[in-house]
C-alpha cells in the first residue's frame, strides 16, 4: 500500500523532472540557434525565403479571418450598444477589442495552425530523411542554417500579421457598422481616435503578438527538431505543436492582459 503510494509519488516526480529537462533542452536549442553573429550574405536570402513562406503565405487566412471577426464584432456590438443608445461607441469597442486581444490572440492561433504545423512537419521530415544529419556531416550546423532563419522569420512575421489582422478587422467593422447598420461615420472614427492610446493599446498589442510569435515559432521549430523521426513521430509532433501553441498563447494572454491592462 505504502509502496504503491511511493511509486505514484516517484512517477509524478519523474514526470516533473522529465518536463524540466525537456524545457532545458528546448531553451538550450533556442540559445544555440540564435546566438552568434549571422552571416548576412548567407542568412539574408534564407531569412527572406522563410518570411515569405511563414508570413506572406499566412496573409490570406489572416486577412479573411480579420475581416469576418471585425464584421461579427460590429454586428454583436451594435445589438448590445443600441440598448444603451450608445451605438456611436462601436468604433472604439471594435478597435480596442482587436488591438488589445483578438488581433494578437486569434492571429497566433491561426499562425500555429497554418505556419507552425507546417514548420514542425517540414523539420521533422528533414530529420527523418537524414537531411539534418547529412548537413552536420558536411560541416554545416543545422541549427544556424535551418532553424535560425525559421525562428527569426516567425518572430518578425507574427507582430506584422497581428497588426494587419486588427487593421482589416477595423475596416470590416466599419463596413458593417457604418455602411450597413448606419452608424455615423464621423463618430465611428472619432470615438476610436479619442479612446485608442498609441502607447497603451497599439504598443501593448504589438508586444503581446511578439511574445506569442516567439512562443509559437519556438514550439513549432523545436517540436520538429526533437521529434521521433518516423511517420507516427512526426504526426504526434505536429499535433503537439498546435495543442501546445494554442494553450501557451491563451495562458500567456491572460498573464499579459493582467499585467498590461489589469488595474491593480
Amino acid at each position, binding site marked *: 500500500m505504502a509502496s504503491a503510494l511511493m511509486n505514484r509519488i516517484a512517477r509524478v516526480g519523474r514526470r516533473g523532472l522529465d518536463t524540466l529537462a525537456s524545457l532545458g533542452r528546448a531553451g538550450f536549442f533556442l540559445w544555440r540557434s540564435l546566438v552568434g553573429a549571422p552571416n548576412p550574405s548567407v542568412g539574408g536570402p534564407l531569412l527572406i525565403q522563410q518570411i515569405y513562406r511563414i508570413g506572406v503565405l499566412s496573409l490570406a487566412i489572416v486577412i479573411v479571418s480579420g475581416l469576418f471577426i471585425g464584421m461579427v464584432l460590429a454586428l454583436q456590438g451594435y445589438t448590445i450598444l443600441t440598448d444603451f443608445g450608445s451605438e456611436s461607441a462601436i468604433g472604439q469597442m471594435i478597435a480596442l477589442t482587436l488591438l488589445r486581444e483578438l488581433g494578437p490572440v486569434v492571429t497566433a492561433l491561426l499562425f500555429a495552425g497554418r505556419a507552425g504545423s507546417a514548420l514542425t512537419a517540414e523539420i521533422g521530415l528533414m530529420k527523418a530523411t537524414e*537531411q539534418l544529419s*547529412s548537413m552536420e556531416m*558536411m560541416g554545416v550546423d543545422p541549427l544556424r542554417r535551418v532553424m535560425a532563419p525559421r525562428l527569426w522569420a516567425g518572430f518578425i512575421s507574427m507582430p506584422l500579421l497581428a497588426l494587419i489582422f486588427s487593421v482589416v478587422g477595423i475596416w470590416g467593422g466599419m463596413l458593417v457598422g457604418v455602411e450597413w447598420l448606419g452608424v455615423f461615420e464621423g463618430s465611428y472614427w472619432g470615438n476610436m481616435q479619442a479612446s485608442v492610446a498609441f502607447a497603451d493599446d497599439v504598443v501593448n498589442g504589438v508586444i503581446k503578438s511578439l511574445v506569442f510569435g516567439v512562443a509559437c515559432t519556438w514550439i513549432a521549430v523545436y517540436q520538429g527538431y526533437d521529434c521521433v523521426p518516423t511517420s507516427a513521430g512526426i504526426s504526434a509532433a505536429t499535433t503537439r505543436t498546435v495543442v501546445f501553441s494554442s494553450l501557451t498563447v491563451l495562458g500567456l494572454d491572460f498573464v499579459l492582459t493582467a499585467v498590461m491592462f489589469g488595474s491593480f
Partner: protein
Amino acid sequence: MTDSSYILLDDVVFTRGSRRIFDGVSLAVPRGRITAIMGPSGTGKTTLLKLIGGQLRPDSGSIRVKGHDVPSLKRRDLYRLREDIGMLFQSGALFTDLSVFENVAFPLRVHTRLPDDMIRDIVLMKLEAVGLRGARNLMPAELSGGMTRRVALARSIALDPELILYDEPFAGQDPIAMGVLVKLIRELNAIMGLTSVLVSHDVPESLSIADYACIVSDGKVIGEGTPEALRNHASPKVQQFLHGNPDGPVPFHYPAPDARADWGGTVEGGAGRG
C-alpha cells in the same frame, strides 16, 4: 596511431538507453583502402559511422580520425575535420528543396568562396563522374533510388574529401544500380586516393570490393581480415553470416518461453528455444 591507419577505434563502448550497442569495439581502418564493416541489421553499423563522424559520443574508449581524438574535439575543430569527410547516407539524404545541381553545389557554396562559374564547372565534373551530368536540373523527388544515391555520392565528393563513409550503399538497389555503385566506389577510391569505409550487410558485393573487412555482431568484432582470410575464418558465427545460413550460432528463433507453455505441451520435437 600508426602511419597506415586513418581511423583507429580502441575499446569503444556505446549504449543507447539500456541497450549496449558496442561493447568494446577496436578497429583500425587503413589509409587509402576500402574497408568493409559488415553485420546483421540493427547491430549498430549506422551508429558506428555516426561515432566516427562525431555525431555521437562513446561512453568510453577512443576514436581517432586522422590523429584527432574525435569525441574531445571542439565544435569548430570537429566541423573543420568533417570537411575532409564525405558521408553517403543510406537514404541519400538529398535536400528535397534543392535541385540536383544545387545539392552538389551546396558544400562548395558553404565552405568555399569560389566564383559561380568555377562552382558550376566543379559540380558538372562531379556529376559527370557519377554519370548524371544530364540530370542536373531534376529535383530529388524525380530521381530513382539508384540515381539518388549517385547524386548523394557526387555531393559527398564535392569538396574532394580524404575519407568517405558509405552507409549501406547497396541496400534496396536493383542489380544494375548495384553494379554501377560497386564500380563507382572502386573507381573513386583508386582515382582520388580516398580512404573508404563501407558499412553493409550485402556480403558478396562488400567482399568483392573491400581490401579489408570485419564483421560486427552483438557489440563486438567477431572476425576481421582480408576477404580471403574471412572466407576461411574458423568461427562458426562468421561462417553463418557469410553464407547466410538461417540457423546456427545466431538462432533462427527469437528468445521465447518453452513451447509447451504456449501450446499446452502437445507439440512434438523442441520447437521452442530458451
